[in-house]
């Protein structure tokens, strides 16, 4: 008993220190000037480019191909989490069927690539548009629902897409589609195998040649998509759209009273989230060469949502970190075989117990959680109940 308590005390003080450090970093970042910030961005990008090196891989994933993992699930989950974060973290809508848009992107790539013969670069924009449209089609009738109802409908949508794919022989039924073409090579130029590139693990790499063996070019493609998505989402968030989403998330009725066309903006969040999910699907399809409905189980929706919530919904660095952890942990501890999902679950529970607001929450999000609104997809705000229950009771007592 006392041992357990001491343990807890230890972990708490460790946590306090970590929190203080985090706060320090945040304050430094808030006061950092433009050039400083740009240098940090540049460093991050350079770091991401060097990430597939064997030296890193030996530590991060001794058992499986590190570059493969970096493309998917790590890169893929990060892109998906950025997209789902628009819906859950920014607009405050709970979507439990996000995998549907990933599937739609993937199948668009597979069908147009394998059956129609289009190239990846032609399919990418089509896949994004198709996914966005399906977001609108799903959202238009359902976004009038609130909180938990929306969650259930989206959950159903995710399953419907998967089951429809399984039961449609024209797209391969349960066997899916194989022989999906890789993206055509942009240029077979390769990085010369001289210093410093050799030591950095980049020597001889042809970054724009999409073959079968080397996963790195795909990873760079994913990285580019992630960067584009981040820039897009950050810009949106700083605009009138972002302010409208924040208002909707915190109090939808009040937002409408401010003149925010809440329905339109919720639909926009759905469409943008879906578009990003679709792009991840197209990229994924272009690398794996064959995909089937089993790739798009509910589990993917759940994991991406876990990534968003775990990392700190609404805060992009947190969401990216969350996605990284959710994608990487089970791969890293492959040696635990069947137990790894159990340990993974334990790790998730532990993290949420110690830090319910997420690993890197936004400050605003904390205030919202304390208030009990705008939580996860407005679950707390739920259905607009009869107003003022507490004082109704009080008035009765007084009367």
């Amino acid at each position: 008993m006392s041992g357990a308590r001491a343990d807890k005390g230890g972990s708490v003080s460790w946590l306090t220190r970590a929190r203080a450090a985090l706060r320090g970093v945040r304050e430094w970042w808030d006061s950092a000037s433009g050039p400083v910030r740009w240098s940090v961005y540049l460093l991050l990008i350079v770091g991401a480019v060097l990430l597939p090196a064997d030296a890193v891989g030996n530590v991060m994933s001794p058992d499986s191909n590190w570059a493969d993992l970096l493309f998917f699930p790590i890169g893929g989950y990060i892109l998906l989490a950025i997209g789902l974060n628009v819906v859950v973290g920014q607009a405050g809508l709970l979507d439990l069927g996000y995998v549907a848009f990933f599937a739609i992107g993937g199948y668009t790539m597979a069908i147009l690539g394998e059956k129609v013969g289009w190239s990846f670069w032609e399919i990418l924009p089509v896949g994004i548009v198709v996914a966005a449209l399906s977001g609108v089609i799903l959202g238009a009738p359902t976004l009038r629902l609130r909180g938990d109802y929306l969650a259930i409908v989206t959950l159903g949508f995710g399953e419907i897409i998967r089951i429809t794919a399984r039961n449609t022989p024209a797209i391969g039924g349960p066997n899916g589609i194989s022989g999906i073409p890789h993206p055509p090579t942009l240029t077979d130029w390769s990085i010369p195998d001289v210093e410093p590139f050799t030591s950095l693990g980049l020597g001889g790499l042809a970054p724009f040649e999409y073959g079968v063996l080397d996963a790195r070019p795909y990873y760079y493609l994913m990285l580019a998509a992630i960067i584009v998505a981040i820039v897009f989402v950050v810009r949106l968030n700083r605009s009138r759209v972002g302010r409208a989403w924040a208002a909707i998330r915190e109090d939808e009725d009040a937002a409408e009273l401010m003149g925010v066309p809440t329905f339109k903006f919720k639909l926009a969040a759905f469409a943008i989230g879906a578009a990003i999910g679709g792009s991840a699907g197209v990229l994924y399809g272009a690398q794996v060469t064959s995909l089937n409905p089993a790739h798009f189980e509910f589990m993917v929706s759940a994991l991406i949502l876990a990534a968003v919530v775990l990392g700190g919904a609404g805060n992009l660095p947190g969401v990216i970190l969350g996605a990284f952890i959710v994608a990487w942990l089970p791969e890293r501890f492959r040696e635990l075989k069947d137990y790894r999902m159990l340990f993974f679950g334990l790790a998730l529970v532990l993290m949420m117990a110690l830090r319910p607001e997420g690993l890197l929450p936004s400050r605003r999000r904390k205030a919202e959680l304390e208030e009990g609104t705008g939580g996860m997809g407005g679950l707390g705000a739920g259905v607009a109940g009869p107003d003022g229950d507490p004082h109704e009771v009080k008035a009765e007592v007084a009367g």
Partner: protein
Amino acid sequence: MLLELADVHVHYGKIAAIRGLSLEVGEGEIVTLIGANGAGKTTTLKTVSGLRPLSRGRIVFDGRDISRMPGHKRVLAGIGQSPEGRGVFPGMTVADNLAMGAYARRGDTSKELAEVYELFPRLAERKDQLGGTMSGGEQQMLAIGRALMARPKVLLLDEPSMGLAPMLVQQIFSIIVEINRRGTTVLLVEQNAAQALQVAHRAYVLETGRIVKSAPAADLLDDPQVRAAYLGGAADAPITADPE
């Protein structure tokens, strides 16, 4: 008449919350709507601001039928509301909350902002505090100030005195009078009937979704039935809302 509700019916599913309500608010007036819990006061205001659709009847505002106009467009038409429970954005600072109030407007809003800070100096002191961490009274000020940022022609106030200490209630009511004096029409919903009747020009009494009385506010202060039911007069003869 600036605002006119004619035979308005509002339903929550099958339940009729408002059943044939008609009322008028003239330009420059303070009109108060009093009634017991569940009488339909909040529903009436939500219907005027467009948060609830009406199932029958019509609402005319500023000479225009707005019965089918979506809520977010009514802000630009000139309807501002401080909702029940205040509806402050908890994760936004006071300044951001006020900026949200002017969301629908284009152009410079510094004049309105200065006016709000002048009416509520407390808000000016706490510009950077998060809305969710403000006290109940401060949140009420913020909700009213935020509604004023859109320069409404009519301001709908839903129980602005709810949960406030008597001192603050006085202060809020005098600010409401001041806002009205500067030219904003006010439709005020209150539990605190005594206070509301003192500041209002006219009053309506609402019972289970219907207007049962309408008179100059001062007259209702002397009305024995109203006194008994809403002003804590003779406790032996309350008018209770009939159950459905």
